[in-house]
């Protein structure tokens, strides 16, 4: 399957990425080659096979709903690129 520019732009938007002209060209080529390659899976007969959705042997782990130590407010904000005393700051969303 050929991944064209419109297709790339759509996927890039979903992934919140953007590409200039030069990078887009290379990315389309690589994506087309990789998608063609993974299409090989169509050769495998999977009729009646259930998808394998988890690798863990443990399911439904329950625990008591107790308050325990957690990351403090100060520590949670420590790595923020922009913050005030209480919150993460982002560009204005509502005019």
């Amino acid at each position, binding site marked *: 399957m050929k991944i064209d520019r419109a297709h790339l732009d759509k996927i890039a938007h979903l*992934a919140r990425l953007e590409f200039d002209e030069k990078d887009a060209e290379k990315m389309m080529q690589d994506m087309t080659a990789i998608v063609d390659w*993974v299409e090989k899976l169509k050769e495998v007969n999977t009729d009646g096979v259930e998808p394998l959705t988890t690798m863990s042997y*443990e399911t439904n782990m329950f625990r008591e709903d107790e308050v325990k130590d957690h990351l403090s407010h100060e520590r949670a904000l420590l790595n923020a*690129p922009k913050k005030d005393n209480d919150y993460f700051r982002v560009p*204005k969303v509502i005019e």
Partner: protein
Amino acid sequence: MKSYASFREIQNDLQRGTISCHDLVRHYLSNIDEKAHLNVFLSVYADEALSRAKEIDHKIKTGTAGKLAGLVVGLKDVLAYKDHPLQASSKILNGFISQYNATAVQRLLDADAIIIGRQNCDEFAMGSSNENSAFGPVLNDIDNTRVPGGSSGGSAVAVMADMCQVSLGSDTGGSVRQPAAFCGVVGLKPTYSRISRFGLVAYASSFDCIGIFSKSVEDVALVLEVIAGADEFDSTVSLQPVQPYSEALHTGNTQKKRIAYIRELTSEALQPEIRENIFRVINKLKQEGNSVEEVEFPLMDYILPTYYILATAEASSNLSRFDGVRYGHRSERTTDLESMYKKSRSEGFGKEVQRRILLGTFVLSASYYDAYYTKAQKVRRIIREKTKEILKKFDFIVMPITPTTAFKIGEHTDNPLEMYLADLFSVQANVVGLPAISIPCGKDKNGLPIGLQVIADDFEELKLLQFSKYIIGLNQ
């Protein structure tokens, strides 16, 4: 100071008092310094490691030291170590400081191990050569024009070049075993969910495993028994009891084994010296009275595509958290919320990471979800069942870990597909969730190390480690 082949030798000398933890740390620091050109460490915690060494020397004197006293460990830059930098070798996490310890790291510290630094790797553990790091490539210590393998390249070289005794890495598609093979050290990927993933930077959560590098199987066994097991911070981690691997390793297991090797071992794509060296081991195993048989695995060609569909899908979801809001890089060119996301992510992530996010987003997008993602989940089940069938009849599967020995820097960087094929033999264990190990198995004509891979059934780490020790004995 000499280079120690195993932690047991270090412990003996510490007990005798011929060396101290402080001497050991200084020894590793001087090697790190001398071989700085290999680009292994992104941070070295010199002063901290030295002062901790003094504390542990005191504990040894007073008989209160933990199980790993004297063990100096390096951490791949994907493991959280509280109040230390962590950035998965990516610009997007510039300046990030861990706010807690990964469970594996906490358990090392509790057992009195000393952490010496943070090791270079492929960005977000995506790569097979350690060339995808925002900090530049790591060089192989045997030949500086060659790659050390990836993604845990720095961790493998650190053990190879005696910059620490043990490294912790991560193995999502072979990222511990492949560099271990390229660097001539032992690398273990345990069963999926054997070690808690809490504090491990997520790449593909149904594949990710913390793995262990060392020069000896004994060290790997000891570290595994310390860090494995139940953890209230990881709901997927196995509750199966952890066996006393290190002690049981010495009791030995003399029963003859049934061993399968896959037919692809005779493939032309495999470097002839790798084939020859592995057949040498196979013949020795036969001479010793073990039964060794060739088996067919007709699904071989489908393992890599299955892996790349599922791992990239999980990566696209896991890496959505890097949005420039709560931590990491935020673009200076931000005008509104959407441009903040797009520019921060496009500036912060390297090209291979962007490629995998795009592929993952593609296979998860509404029109393609069933054709690619669900299809790959179904094929994954078939691959798992067929592999488990082999392990019903045999104790182990033996195969190469890499099709070639360490390749040249830049050899595959233009073609991502070519690079993906370097994982041909390593991804099966991740797709299926089985424990697998890479052990040194001779060298090629250029003196480059060859690795032998052994795969065992779920949670059979003890059997796997005992057998690895036995093979290493046969090879000597």
